[in-house]
């Protein structure tokens, strides 16, 4: 294989450290051995519970759960590594957000009661409990505080009403972190997180069909007088925003990490293709235009890799700013998109056939520039600083 700025980079020390690089190897092996062979099946019928349990067997779920609860007690950066690998695996384009659920796990680690942890951690580790963070609503978007789902206290229960959309793992989740208004008059200061088991009466869902992620699970969730005990409150009442804000940076950064992984994988697949494909009696790679397109891609990916590594170091140092993660979100997601677009072009007609991973990776790439804060929102946030 070409000596490129691969994952992890050859001649520069990994910013993750040895332990997380071992975690990376496990995640990569999982995708290569378990997901890739079944990708056509997932495309057609969606993912199944068996693949989640398989992920549990590999030990890649709930990486941040402390050792005392049977977890690996890994650093939170594990989610970055998992995201890079989700991007780097061609099958990741089919699987959607899939295993990147440790944003949820971390909520439970940080804010769960002993009882809640004991109830859910074992299932999370084995893959029996799929988690979903249910925040976004049809009429809220970038402004989380405008959600309308409510949880009204009734004796020892909360009664939840409302609907959520664009929820990763939403149609399958066994454990829903419902973000609700417990004090609707107070906007951001009246929001709480309530754990709702997926099989609670009154919970219904619908899988949404997305561009890309054919085997993924993006869902709508409806709460119709859903009743759960008040002990299902996660953390303190009305403190959801305070719990959320510290996680935003990491959430954006894992999306970004996925982009870098995907761009790298697409580039490698395409170099290989250009060496093998013959046209007009020459290899595709022999054309100057091909070489220039590949050089442009490699340059941008190398720049992106150096940039991401720098940000990862800031994350370790605790100096990553909101502006940093906004800029990363803009630039690295656009990088993935440009790379995939060029790759499809070099694959030609084959790049449009969904049998080909490049085709699926292209389709999956588009959402990266939109979710977890669209480019425009990031620019708006950055823009305020110039005033």
């Amino acid at each position, binding site marked *: 294989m070409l000596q490129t700025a691969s994952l992890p980079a050859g001649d520069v020390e990994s910013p993750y450290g040895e332990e997380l690089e071992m975690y990376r190897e496990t995640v990569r092996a999982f995708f290569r051995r378990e997901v890739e062979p079944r990708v056509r099946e997932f495309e057609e019928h969606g993912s199944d519970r068996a693949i989640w349990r398989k992920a549990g067997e590999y030990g890649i779920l709930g990486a941040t759960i402390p050792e005392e609860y049977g977890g690996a007690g890994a650093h939170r950066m594990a989610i970055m590594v998992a995201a890079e690998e989700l991007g780097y695996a061609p099958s990741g384009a089919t699987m959607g957000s899939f295993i990147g659920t440790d944003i949820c796990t971390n909520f439970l680690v940080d804010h769960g009661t002993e009882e809640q942890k004991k109830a859910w951690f074992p299932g999370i580790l084995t893959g029996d409990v799929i988690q979903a963070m249910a925040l976004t609503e049809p009429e809220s978007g970038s402004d989380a505080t405008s959600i309308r789902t409510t949880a009204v206290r009734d004796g020892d229960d909360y009664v939840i009403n409302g609907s959520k959309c664009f929820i990763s793992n939403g149609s399958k989740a066994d454990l829903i972190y419902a973000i609700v208004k417990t004090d609707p008059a107070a906007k951001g200061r009246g929001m709480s997180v309530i754990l709702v088991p997926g099989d609670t009466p009154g919970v219904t869902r619908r899988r949404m069909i*997305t561009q890309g992620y054919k085997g993924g699970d993006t869902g709508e969730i409806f709460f119709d007088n859903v009743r759960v005990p008040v002990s299902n409150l996660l953390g303190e009442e009305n403190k959801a925003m305070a719990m959320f804000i510290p996680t935003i940076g990491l959430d954006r950064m894992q999306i970004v990490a996925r982009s870098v992984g995907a761009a790298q994988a697409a580039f490698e697949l395409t170099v290989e293709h250009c060496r093998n494909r*013959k046209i007009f009696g020459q290899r595709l790679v022999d054309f100057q235009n091909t070489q220039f397109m590949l050089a442009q891609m490699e340059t941008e990916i190398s720049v992106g890799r150096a940039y991401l590594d720098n940000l990862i170091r800031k994350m370790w140092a605790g100096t990553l700013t909101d502006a940093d993660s906004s800029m990363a979100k803009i630039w690295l997601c656009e990088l993935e998109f440009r790379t995939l677009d060029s790759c*499809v072009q070099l694959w030609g*007609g084959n790049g449009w056939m969904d*049998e080909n991973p490049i085709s699926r990776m292209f389709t999956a790439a588009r959402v990266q520039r939109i979710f977890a804060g669209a480019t425009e929102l990031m620019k708006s946030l950055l823009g305020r600083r110039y005033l």
Partner: protein
Amino acid sequence: MARIGYSDEHEQFRRTARAFFDREHEPQLKKFEAAGGIDKDFWRRAGQAGLLGACIPEEYGGAGGDFTFNVILAEELGRTPGSATTGSSLMADIATYILVLHGDDAQKQRYLPGILAGEISQAMPLTEPDAGSDATAIKTTAIRDGDDYVISGEKYFISNGAGADVLYVVAKTDPSQRGRGMSVIIVDADTPGVARHKIPMMGWAHGDTGALSFDDVRVPVSNLIGREGMAMKILMDTFLEDRLQIAGRCLGAASAALDLTLAYVKSRMVSGQRVFDFQNTQFVLAECRTDIAVTESFLDSCVVKFRDKALSFDEGAMLKLWATEMEGRVLDKCVQLFGGAGLMDENPISRMYTAARIQRVYAGTSELQKVAIAKGLEALA
């Protein structure tokens, strides 16, 4: 804004086509999706509406129109959001052209009435897995055996390939040669030895892009179109038509995307104002509108020149390059303005975006168009 180069008759045809798609395509989309694509009935209704075979001479029952009608049909098909799901469908008149220009009287009598009526749909199996842009590298052979040709080979990436009734197979009648050994032979799709299936694609989820195999398929030599070895000439005769048609679809699709997006951003509220009210939204849409307006002028002037037999191959290549790249730019911006909603397949914009990607690839990639344009530059003083 008024367009230059279209007669009243053309504009009337445009209205007819648009009304047809509004009535017969968009409302039927769920049905087409359930059925895996458009059905025979849709073709028949298109025939009844007078949309098919615009170029078929009056002596064979057609309207004998100029090719402008087909460009209009292409643009209106592109403007139909549902066509991002069902694919090229009615864009088969390139095949009709071949029959009209090069077929003999018997062949015309046999097929043209059915084409006009929408009873007979056509496909032109040319591309092969290992011969995309380089047509002369095909390996399918048609070997003369008495009064028959025996055809063997694989075809790939064929519009309407899995469903068409009649196939204009491009094959080597003289495998020792490249371009000069290629011929076009009509094969009825139900001839023994023909096998085919649809290929799953990035876009056109319920379109028909087919993979075909020919296993000792035997057809009479009277099915040859024109003369042996004439395939490249026959194909070149439709080169500009094909490019005009694709550009029309790109323009239609980009225009439709802009309309859908405008409607969306004017109704969608964010932070207490319409998405339209953000300056960025307005600037991005202004860029889209300009891109579309410029492309419209270019297409229209190419249409006029084509009618005057003054359109060069260079210009055809520039048109294909330009219009397909324009569609890509516009669709990308539109999806972005839809935000998350734009990525849900329930939303037409999502499917239009995904479907747009192929335009820069098929019928000669952007790179091949540049090669063609550069040939023209080489010739300049």
